[in-house]
């Protein structure tokens, strides 16, 4: 459950490249209004109302009948000389309309793509991020199931070689900015987890305020990472989220905190907490425990006790939680979650905090550690 606020981002396409515009965008438009089931959905988009049967590889490709969709990768990597890194690479798709009258121009398009790319140099305590927009017109961006490829200009997620693992081809991710770049080969180590109710993930009150959502929670990752011209051989684990929907947030929801935790015992925990306007957690908060063999169990809001242990204030003044103790007594889990770097603020069109975290704690009384990613929105 990630950034469904893509639609707002499109507005900022028009804004200059500076940071100056962001305040107005943030404060000017409420997240829930844009995300919610407003008059804007008068277009005849499909909605995630009923459970569906996921079909692969077709569902790896785009779902243009839904308004928004993303291919979302995070991962924690370690270089051969034992330096630690985190990365996020996401390509978002949003449909402006379902109008099939496309005109004659190759450029004519109603599918807009956005990509976010960030690298955290944990050892060097630096954070790099960038953002891009394009359209699917003139093949500048796009997505296809077979052969699997999602791209925005030369940022690309694509099938590489002929290997297929748990229904997903072995893929490569290529992205570069002026200062950083990644070139990673990624292979699923566990089957896809269908989140929520067999892949139907209810996010807010009312039918249709939901998404279709599946994840590959542990993926072997190897390749190159470049920072300021310096290239490192890296390896580690990635996490992939796939989600598509037309509307999700309810009017009273402000944002969310999302945890993707990969523990050293080869299990994973996903938990998201929907925050209401008054800051309290919504009943739609939910999570999943993924076992070594890939089997999963839902965790409900009542089972989880999140405790914020510290805060970090962004240069523009927002206060983000920075450090948690996550207790799941029913599963005998207590984890201390610490950001790998305080400042992993995605200061892009819409600001959010998304960063690599370190995990220490106990599970069934035994010490455990791990690495993961946390996303904080609506602050």
């Amino acid at each position: 459950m990630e950034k469904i606020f893509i639609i707002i981002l499109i507005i900022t396409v028009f804004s200059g490249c500076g940071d100056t515009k962001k305040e107005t965008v943030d404060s000017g438009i409420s997240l829930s209004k844009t995300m919610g089931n407003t008059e804007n959905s008068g277009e005849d988009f499909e909605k995630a109302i009923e459970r569906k049967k996921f079909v692969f590889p077709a569902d790896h490709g785009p779902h243009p009948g839904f308004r928004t969709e993303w291919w979302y990768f995070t991962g924690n990597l370690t270089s051969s000389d034992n330096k630690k890194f985190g990365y996020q690479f996401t390509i978002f798709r949003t449909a402006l309309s379902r109008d099939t009258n496309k005109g004659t121009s190759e450029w004519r398009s109603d599918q807009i793509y956005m990509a976010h790319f960030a690298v955290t140099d944990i050892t060097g305590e630096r954070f790099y991020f960038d953002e891009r927009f394009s359209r699917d017109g003139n093949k500048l961006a796009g997505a296809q199931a077979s052969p699997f490829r999602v791209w925005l200009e030369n940022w690309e997620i694509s099938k590489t070689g002929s290997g297929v693992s748990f229904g997903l081809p072995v893929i490569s991710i290529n992205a570069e900015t002026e200062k950083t770049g990644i070139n990673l080969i990624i292979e699923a180590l566990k089957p896809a987890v269908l989140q929520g109710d067999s892949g139907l993930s209810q996010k807010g009150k009312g039918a249709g305020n939901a998404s279709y959502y599946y994840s590959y929670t542990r993926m072997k990752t190897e390749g190159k990472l470049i920072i300021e011209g310096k290239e490192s051989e890296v390896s580690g684990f990635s996490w992939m989220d796939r989600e598509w929907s037309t509307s999700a947030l309810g009017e009273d929801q402000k944002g969310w905190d999302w945890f993707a935790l990969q523990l050293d015992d080869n299990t994973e925990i996903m938990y998201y907490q929907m925050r209401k306007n008054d800051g309290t957690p919504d009943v739609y908060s939910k999570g999943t425990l993924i076992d070594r063999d890939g089997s999963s169990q839902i965790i409900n809001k009542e089972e989880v006790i999140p405790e914020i242990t510290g805060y970090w204030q962004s240069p523009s003044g927002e206060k983000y939680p920075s450090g948690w103790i996550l207790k799941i007594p029913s599963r005998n889990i207590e984890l201390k979650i610490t950001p790998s770097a305080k400042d992993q603020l995605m200061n892009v069109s819409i600001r959010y905090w998304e960063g690599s975290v370190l995990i220490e704690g106990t599970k069934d009384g035994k010490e455990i550690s791990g690495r993961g990613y946390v996303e904080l929105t609506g602050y």
Partner: protein
Amino acid sequence: MSNLLTRSSLRYLFNHPWQFGLSILGIALGVAIVVSIDIANYSSATAFNLSMNAVAGKSTHQITGTSEGIPDSFYTYLKTVKGTGKIAPVIESYISIPDSNKRVFKLLGVDIFAERPFRDYLSQTDISIDGGLKNFLTKPNSVILSEESLGKLKKYSGDTLNVIVNGKQKILYISGTLKENEQNRSALENLFITDIATAQELTGKGNQIDYIDVIISNDGEEQSLKNLLPEGYQLQKSGSRSETAEQMLEAFNINLTSLSLLALIVGLFLIYNTMTFSVLQRRVLIGTLRSIGVTSNEISGMILREALIMGIIGTLIGFTAAFFISKILLIFISRTINDLYYVVSVREIHISPLIILKGTMLGVFATLLSAVYPSREASGIHPRTAMIRSEQESSLIRRIPRMTVTGIIFMAAGAVILVIPSHNIWLSYFGILPVIIGFALMTPVIIILVEKISSPVYKKFFGITGKMASRSVLQNISRTYIAIAALALAVAATVGVGIMIGSFRSTVINWLEARLNADIFISAPSLISRRNDAVLPEEILQKIKTLDEVNGVNFYRELIQPQDGKEYHIIASGISSKSYSGFQFKEGDPGEVWEKFDNGEVFLSEPFAYRYDLGVGEFINLKTDKGMHDFKVAGIYYDYASDQGLITMKYDQFRKYWNAGGISGISVFVKEGSSIDSVKDKIRELGTDGQQLVVRTYRFLLDSSVEIFDRTFLVAKVLQILSVIVAFIGILSSLMSLQLERKRELGILRANGLLPSQLFKIVTLQTLLMGFTAGILALPLGNALAVILVYIINKRSFGWTMQFQVLPSILIEAMILSIFAALLAGIYPGYKMSKTSPANALREE
């Protein structure tokens, strides 16, 4: 002592308000004309640059492709395969709005997703998620424009707008507005922003974009980008289009500036005249001042100070007037630019510090300069001789032979400068200056000659008063000659410019008649008449050929090929042999040129050959879609269609090197016995899919071409009239001074029994003679100026050969103008003098 002099100065100036006022008016007008021309030129250039900058944004370079543009796929290749960073696709075109006084706007097609580094004003839109953006990207024909443009068109966001793009009618949908600020207001005013997809669909460009904007920060990036470009593509600096435009207008601007300087020269004569008078009138006063111990330096300082005050006041008034005059001139000038060169919409006056500096220098320093001689004269007044009134006159009479010889030398020197072979227009204008000075120096001797002849005639017809009038011109020669010279110069300028325009016009009409040798002419509606930027689909040519009444067709495709910061206009001609006679060759054997033409050699128009110094047998290297290629020159032909010059080649040859499709113009021969009008109607119906065809008959095309020609020279005519006004003020001022100075003399005559009506008659006859003399002088000088303009200035500015043609009507008009101006200027002084009581006139001294 200086206090005394200042008071003396002020007292004199206040006692002669007319003289003072007219001089200032003369300076003011001279400055106003020069400055307003400067402002108009500068404003149009600034408007063009602003719109260019608004279009270019922060781009440092542009990638241009072949004559067709750049295929979409090449852009995608750069973006997705090569990962080229800051690049953005652009389509540029023009939109005209039929219901808005034919206003022209620029259509800019962009990809908003690539825009961020380029055009920051795009961030200032009210586009919202619920309507604007979606419509902008997905609704066909959506545009956004500035709030001010919307206001002027009386439209709102959400409205539709009927426009013509590339000769096709379209309905645009306004999906949002751009918010302008002080800096970009005028740049955004004429801009329609649209999505690149919409731009392609509106302009019918297929899968092509016009160019790619690039931001490059170092040479390494530039080189690696260059390496990615296919044959025929170029990476050029963003400013080069503005530079090209400046070059295009250079000759046009220089000529306007020179015409404006002519008005200033006339104005300077006027100042000289006034200052001389003021010295003459104060001879006794100055003599008295000298005798009480005022030094000659102090006297000359006093005169210069007066000139400085007049110069400053005149310049200030001149600037104020220039502000208003330039607005009118701007209308003429921008229309001419739109007719001939490029689309520019000028709505604001722009003034540069340089213009202010130049205007001030001209107004203040030129005034001071022209007062130097009178001030020296004043300082030379000896207390003893100050009382001898005729001293001034006799000293001038003594100097006449020397002046005449100096005048001849000056004119000869001017002639020498003018015949120096050079492409430099300024040098040519500089050569005119000695001719004018020489002419002014020769004025007194001409006056003497004219008086010798007129004196008996005047006596015979008007009796003693006639003789008195005639003699007084001569007696006061030091005062009359300057006024006569100024008037003559202004009239001569009218004659010169008039003959030049007349010669040009008849040359162009002869040429048009020979060239337009078909019955019907078809083109797509073009926004610039001498730059055919719209094309017709080729099917139309085929359809016309198959019409029963059609006996044959010629056609051409015009292509503007940017190359090395220049624009070459290429005419690919599908001409049939029966139209060969329309080409008159200046160089090249008419018996051979057409065969060479068939084999791929090219013709150059006369201005082109002049501009690039090319002759028959030489080669011109052109950037084609297939790379650089040398074309051999087969002939140089007379052509007056474009001052930028044209390269004409056979259509089939053109298509070997360029991909550009479409037809710019078709001319049709109608079979004998068929009605031209009915064929015209049939052709008009061939335009399908909203394609508008401009179908014109021979007569109509000829008339509209001449109309554009006349419009082009409207500015010259306006300037001419202004010069005459300055000269008129000059002669009015001189006559006023003259008569005022003769107050006592006339008072004595009145006391001796001369009736007021007789006095009026004397004054009138005198001014008549002065006007006549000025006319006599103006005719040869005017012809000389015309010769210079036709054979030297025009040739050097544009490379055109013209047939010199003197219309008798111009000469007669000049004579009438000169006499009428003088007479008119004499009325008030004559009236005033005749009303003065002799007692008062005598007492005042």
